């Protein structure tokens, strides 16, 4: 895979774990929308041929030696993107839930507003059920908790359809949550007083596989994320004693 052509160059990052049923289609769709943007699939040690399928679809594939989980997988991609000099990275999940048709809009907002992160949001402007009632309840709780921390509302804090600029990329190469990273990543950026924007997107049902957050894991997820947010709040740079 090539290095960035300039500081304004975009890389599409696709984290994938056992997504053989969807990965080829996702790469094809992304290529259809963004024919010039290089695509990097980060294979989180899949056992189902995801690596070969992504390779044969023409993407660059970063294969992790063992399973790191979503956060470690995404961070590996961010690290490589940063080293290759990319100015923008947009993450599209390998399960086909994120519609690549929204990538140009995400990139446009990143470039034009100068914000550090842009979130493809299911609930921003679009009104209507896009998720189960239980998950919507959880998202509602996260919104409530995040509102005072971020200083502005975030409609879809659990969305993984995100774009970041190089400054955010640099932060994430050093500090990125390992499990369920989306919400904590927002707080990590807030520690640096970075800005984020939301862009209205429609999400599709995943093509294959299952969500990493099952009903049994939901409570653990809730506690884990809230604790992660709390810990990150304690790390706020502005609250450290001035030396």
């Amino acid at each position, binding site marked *: *895979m090539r290095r960035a052509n300039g500081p304004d160059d975009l890389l599409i990052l696709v984290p994938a774990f056992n997504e053989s049923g969807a990965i080829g289609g996702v790469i094809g769709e992304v290529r259809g929308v963004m024919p010039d943007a290089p695509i990097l699939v980060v294979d989180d040690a899949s056992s189902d041929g995801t690596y070969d399928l992504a390779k044969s679809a023409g993407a*660059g*594939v*970063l*294969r*992790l*030696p*063992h399973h*790191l989980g979503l956060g*470690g997988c995404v*961070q*590996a991609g961010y*690290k*490589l993107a940063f*080293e290759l000099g990319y100015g923008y990275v947009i993450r599209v999940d390998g399960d086909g839930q994120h519609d690549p048709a929204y990538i140009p809009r995400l990139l446009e907002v990143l470039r034009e507003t100068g914000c550090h992160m842009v979130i493809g949001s299911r609930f921003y402007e679009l009104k209507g059920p896009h998720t189960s009632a239980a998950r919507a309840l959880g998202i509602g709780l996260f919104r409530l908790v995040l509102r005072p921390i971020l200083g502005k509302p975030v409609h879809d804090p659990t969305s993984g359809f995100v774009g970041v600029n190089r400054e955010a990329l640099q932060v994430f190469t050093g500090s990125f949550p*390992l499990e369920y990273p989306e919400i904590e990543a927002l707080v990590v950026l807030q520690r640096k007083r970075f800005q984020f924007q939301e862009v209205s997107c429609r999400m599709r049902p995943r093509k294959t596989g299952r969500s990493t957050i099952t009903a049994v894991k939901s409570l653990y997820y809730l506690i884990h994320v809230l604790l992660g947010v709390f810990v990150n709040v304690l790390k706020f740079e502005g609250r450290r004693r001035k030396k």
Partner: protein
Amino acid sequence: MERLLNAMTVLSIVLMIAVLYSVRRSHIRVEYSVSWLGASLFLLILSRSHSTLNWIAQQLGLTYPPLALIILVFCVFLVVFYRFSVVISDLKDANIAMAQRLAIVEFQLQSQNEER
């Protein structure tokens, strides 16, 4: 009370021997055996020194000294577990960083080979 203290003495000696044996067989690194040896030694001293145990029980306001021993054992092992949680977290962070670095280096090598 005496039976419980004897059991604690046996437990601490067994723990000490097991740790020393594991260190000798390289199953535990020396630096991580220190916490266990310290904990077992602490347990051994308390189970054999009635005056110390009685004094601690008095300080804690306990009328039954073996209860003080159990509370102290719990606290000591809590410290050991906490220390190992810190060690495991460090190891996990290092492991993740190393796995990511390995993947990136491998990727770059492969890219260079493909370009040739």
